[in-house]
Every structure is written in structure tokens, then in C-alpha cells.
């Protein structure tokens, strides 16, 4: 799928707003989005979210032969994957230019900053060394991918524990030392904007990515885009902004790392599950369930499931004797089993309970139930059905699937006559109310109700 095209409005509006010091998400020009670092249950796994941008990184290692030019050094390999989960225009197995660029930048940053002590990864010179591999996959793309990816990669490396290797009964190396760090910051040219969201990124003239570590050492500098050439001052300005940011990010990373280490020492659960906000409406947790295997029990359960679906789907003839006609709102009624009359608020839950168990959709018919609670008081038992005497309710009353808004009611001629005899006023009323359609609808309904009363 192709990337969606930016509209002219967006192209014009975003830069204009930025030139006035405003941004779409109401940040200041030099304000970053909320950064969150969550360590996973496995060693060397972490997820970083920067606003809506989400990146998952996993560090892993394997033993390999070293490069012949560097026989006593381990290998650091970085792989950035722009999976289609991140954005629809990313494709599998076909890295975009942006993906390649991001990969190269990250590799350069990590290697140049010497955050991984490669010599400590050597097991036997010229024969066996550790290759540390960092896989970064983009889960959600909302701008500033290089920022998020670099933070994730570094956090994963910092969290990673390489297994100790014993060779000929003699331990050759201890745990690898991963120290210091860097973080790129991608400000904009002209009006410098840090941590751009996807729209800002796409409408920008140019982009500067500054790789810098917590000791204010520059590790990478990338200037992209077609905009005006960067001046010395601008680059210096961006670098100093990035340096401040780098320190913040590293401090936060270390805090999270310490928290994670403490949790592991105390044997309390760690991982992504712990980061889920269970208070959110879109989150659900389910306690561990226990089943005792019993053949008989199981059969009963299956039958119950089938029965439910049948009774919900269609009300059989035999079931009619226990039915009660309940009016739900105006001009609509519902057949409810007598022993199964629940409060209205349960109705939503009722139709949800049958999700996925077959039968026709119950959503349309129950729509009225979700109306505000004021309707509740109007629920009344209209008539009680019994097999001996079958009163025929008006046809429009048992139409369950029609929502109130779409309802069209036509007055029958005989009905008009009936009404005329009783109340002459009402016709005039209708004439007057033609100016206001809403009112008209309400009155017609009322009139209809009167008619019903007469029928009774």
C-alpha cells in the first residue's frame, strides 16, 4: 500500500503554525513527547514509546568467528525492521530508504559511541567471539523513528545479559560491560522543532539527526532534506539541544533499569504485562482459570451453549405462553420471557453474552436499550400473551429492528376518522407544527398513542 498523500492544506498549515510557534499536538517547539521505557520479561528486551511511536528492541547473541581484520573484537550487528505493523506503507523484505538510513545511522551511533566494549566480547582470539545482535522493530510509526529506535536499541543493550562461557574448564570472560550512551535528536531547520510527529516530519524542509552521548560527545550527525543549508550556528544549537536531551534520556533509562533489577531481585513479576494499565477501558485481564476434567460436565456445558443460541435466535411457538410484551420506547415492543425480565441496563450485557455463539445479530434490535436512562421509566407491560386468547397487537409495535430515528409512521384513513370524532384539535395542531419537523414527529407519535388507547 502506498503512503497516503499529504493534502495541500496540511502542507501549508503545519509549517505556518510552526512559524507562529504552535504545533498540532499543542507542544512547544522545543518540547518532547512523553517517553516511556518498558523492559520485557526476557533479558535484553524492551519497548520504547515516544508519544504514539512504539518500538520494540531485542538484543541477542551468538558465537561466531571474528572478522580477520579485528581478530580480538566481538561484533555488534544492528537490524532495524520497518514491519507493516508500524505503518501500512512499510513492506516486508523490501526496506525503504528510510529504513536503510535508520539502520545505518543507528549502527554508526552505537559503534562510534563505543557503548559496547567489543574487546570484552572476545572468547578466543581469531576463533570465537560473541556477535551481539540488536533487532529493532517498529510497532507504530508516528514520527521521530530514529529517536525511538536508538533509545530502544540502547536500552535493550543495557538490559541484556550475555551468558558466561566456560572454555576448557577456565572461565574466559565475565559479563559484558555496556556503558555510556547516545541519543539522536531530530530537530528541524529554519524553525527548530524537536521530536517531530509524522505530519511535521513530512512537511519539514530538512531534518538534522544528532547522535550524542551522555558525556556530550558527538557520535553521528546527519543532515537530510531539501531545505536551506544548515549554518554553523544552527548545527551547534541543535547539538546543544541534543546534549541536554541525551542526559535526560540516559538518566531515565538507568532509573527504569534499576527498577527492573530490583523487581527481579524481589522475584516480583516483570515484563510487558506489568506495564499494561488495567484501569483502561480497552484492557482486560483474566484470572487464571481452573477446570476439573469431567466428561459429563462438559457435555452439559455444550448443550447449554447450543440451547442459549437457539432461544436467543428465535422465539419458538412453545415459548410464547411465558412471554410478556414489554414496550421499549414508543411504537416498539419486545417479547421478553416472564421469568427473565431483567433491569434495562443489563440488556447490553445480555446481547454481548451471545457474541460468537451463532444466531442472527442481536445488536440492531437492542439498540433502543442503550438509550439514556430516562426511557427506563416509560417501560410498561402493554399486554400479556397467553395461548388461549391471542390479541393481535399492531404490526408496527413488534418491529424490533427499527431504530426510533428512522421510523416513518403513516396515518391510516380510518384512524384519522376515529381521531376526528374524538378530538378535533389535534388536526389543527399537526398543520401548525409542519414548520418544525421535530415537533411534528413527536406529536404524531402522541397521536398514535391515543389511537392505541382507543384500540384497547
Amino acid at each position, binding site marked *: 500500500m502506498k503512503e497516503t498523500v499529504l493534502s495541500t492544506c496540511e502542507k501549508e498549515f503545519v509549517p505556518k503554525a510552526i512559524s507562529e510557534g504552535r504545533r498540532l499536538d499543542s507542544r512547544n517547539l522545543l518540547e518532547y513527547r512523553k517517553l516511556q521505557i518498558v523492559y520485557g520479561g526476557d533479558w535484553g528486551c524492551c519497548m520504547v514509546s515516544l508519544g504514539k511511536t512504539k518500538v520494540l528492541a531485542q538484543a541477542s547473541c551468538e558465537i561466531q568467528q571474528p572478522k580477520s581484520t579485528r581478530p580480538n573484537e566481538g561484533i555488534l550487528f544492528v537490524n532495524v525492521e520497518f*514491519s507493516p505493523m508500524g505503518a501500512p506503507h512499510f513492506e516486508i523484505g523490501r526496506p525503504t530508504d528510510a529504513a536503510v538510513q535508520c539502520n545505518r545511522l543507528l549502527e554508526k551511533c552505537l559503534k562510534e559511541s563505543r557503548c559496547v566494549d567489543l574487546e570484552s566480547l572476545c572468547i578466543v582470539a581469531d576463533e570465537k567471539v560473541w556477535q551481539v545482535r540488536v*533487532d529493532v522493530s517498529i*510497532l507504530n510509526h508516528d514520527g521521530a523513528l530514529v529517536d525511538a529506535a536508538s533509545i530502544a536499541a540502547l536500552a535493550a543493550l543495557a538490559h541484556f545479559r550475555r551468558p558466561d562461557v566456560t572454555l576448557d574448564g577456565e572461565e574466559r570472560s565475565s559479563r559484558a560491560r555496556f556503558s555510556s550512551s547516545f541519543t539522536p535528536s531530530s530537530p528541524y531547520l529554519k524553525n527548530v522543532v524537536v521530536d517531530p510527529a509524522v505530519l511535521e516530519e513530512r512537511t519539514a524542509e530538512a531534518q538534522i539527526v544528532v547522535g550524542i552521548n551522555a558525556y556530550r560527545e558527538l557520535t553521528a550527525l546527519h543532515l537530510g532534506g531539501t531545505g536551506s543549508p544548515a549554518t554553523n550556528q544552527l548545527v551547534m544549537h541543535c547539538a546543544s539541544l541534543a546534549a541536554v536531551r541525551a542526559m535526560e534520556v540516559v538518566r531515565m533509562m538507568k532509573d527504569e533499569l534499576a527498577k527492573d533489577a530490583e523487581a527481579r531481585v524481589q522475584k516480583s513479576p516483570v515484563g510487558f504485562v506489568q506495564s499494561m494499565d488495567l484501569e483502561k*477501558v480497552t*484492557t482486560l485481564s483474566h484470572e487464571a*482459570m481452573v477446570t476439573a476434567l469431567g466428561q459429563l460436565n462438559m457435555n452439559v456445558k455444550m448443550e447449554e451453549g447450543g440451547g442459549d443460541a437457539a432461544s436467543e435466535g428465535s422465539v419458538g411457538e412453545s415459548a410464547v405462553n411465558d412471554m410478556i410484551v414489554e414496550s421499549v420506547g414508543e411504537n416498539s415492543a419486545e417479547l421478553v420471557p416472564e421469568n427473565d425480565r431483567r433491569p434495562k441496563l443489563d440488556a447490553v450485557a445480555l446481547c454481548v453474552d451471545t457474541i460468537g455463539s451463532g444466531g442472527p445479530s442481536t445488536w440492531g434490535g437492542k439498540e433502543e436499550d442503550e438509550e439514556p436512562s430516562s426511557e427506563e421509566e416509560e417501560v410498561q407491560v402493554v399486554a400479556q400473551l397467553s395461548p388461549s386468547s391471542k390479541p393481535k397487537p399492531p404490526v408496527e409495535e413488534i418491529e424490533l429492528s427499527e431504530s426510533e430515528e428512522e421510523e416513518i409512521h403513516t396515518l391510516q384513513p380510518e384512524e384519522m376518522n376515529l381521531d376526528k370524532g374524538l378530538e378535533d384539535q389535534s388536526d389543527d395542531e399537526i398543520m401548525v407544527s409542519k414548520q418544525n419537523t421535530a415537533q411534528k414527529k413527536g406529536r404524531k407519535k402522541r397521536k398514535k398513542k391515543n389511537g392505541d388507547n382507543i384500540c384497547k
Partner: protein
Amino acid sequence: MAAMAEDQHVLRKMFCEFDVLSCPDGSAMKYRNRSCLRPNKLIIDKACVEAVYRPKVGQPRVADKTKEKMIGNTCSSAILSTLYPRTSVSIILQEMQNSGGLMACAINAAYLALIRSGIAMKFLVAAVTCGITKDDKVILDPDLNKVKDCHTELMFAFDSIDFNIVAVDSSGQYTEEQYQKALSLCKEASNEIFDFYRNLVKKYACCI
């Protein structure tokens, strides 16, 4: 003995979070997996359903491709594809943490994402893993430690209407008797997963 038996028939705690991602149509993060959905390819008269499974480390290999295919087949059996001509449904699954039962988790996550995306389906599917230990006990949803004791792993996927088998994945040797036992155990456990789906929808439906 009864207490012991109960101990073995336990599905681990399940978690799910909807709407984790902003770009795709529907996303669900379920304990060990995360999946999302978006359209891509084109068949004239019906929807094309494809699954993409991404391991956490390295490039996808043959085993991952097999998983992909299986998840794709399981999902396309339920989706009413003729309702969506010229559409492609891509289900992208990213492994986040593997603590056993990855395949079943992937299928469940895929279905949760499908529910969230609002695609019409004939039925829902719940997948349950169980293992057969060396002393011939059937245990439900074994974690990584328990998997080591198992010589066989079976994964069943059931539909929500007749509880028929939609997919089976097995590794190792087992007798017919063991298979039947595992099947009935998983069938019972699948109810719990359908309840989980329902509770999620119930919770979510109240806020929209």
C-alpha cells in the same frame, strides 16, 4: 489427587489491551503477542486474507512461515471474505515474549484484532495448547518450564458455535487415547477463552 489434577488443568492468566497502535485498523496486545490489521492485496470478488508473523530475533525462518500459513488459514476460515471484495486483510503478529503456547496465543491475538477491526466473521476461534508429560499426564497450557517435561505438544483451535476443531497442530508422539483426552480438556478450556473474548467486548462495547 483431585487437588493435583486441578493444579494441572489451569490456563494461565490472560491479558489483553485493545487499541495499542494508532496506524492499523484494529490492534490487540495479548500477553505474549501483539497483532494488528490493515488491507493490502487485491482479489476481485472476495477479500484476500494473509497473516504475517514476525519473530523477535532475526529474520523469519521456515518454522515461522509455517506458523504464518497456519494462522492465515485459521483466520480465513472464519472471515466472511465475500463481503469484502477487492480488499486485503493483513494480520500482522509480532512476538513480544514467548513463555510457551506461542501458537495458540498468536491465533487468539489474531482473532482479538479481527474483533476489534470489526470485520464480519462466521464464528470466533479460540486456541488452546496442552502438553503430554513423560508420565502420560495431560497438562493444559504448559509454560516454558513445563514444556521441558512434555514429550508431546498439541494445539487445538475451536470455533465458537459448535465447538468443532478448526485447526490442530501437534509435535511428538501420542496415542489415540491421549489425543482424545487432550481434545476434551482443550475443548472445555476453550469456553474460558470465549468468555474472555466476550468480557472484552462487553467492556469495550460499554464505552463506545
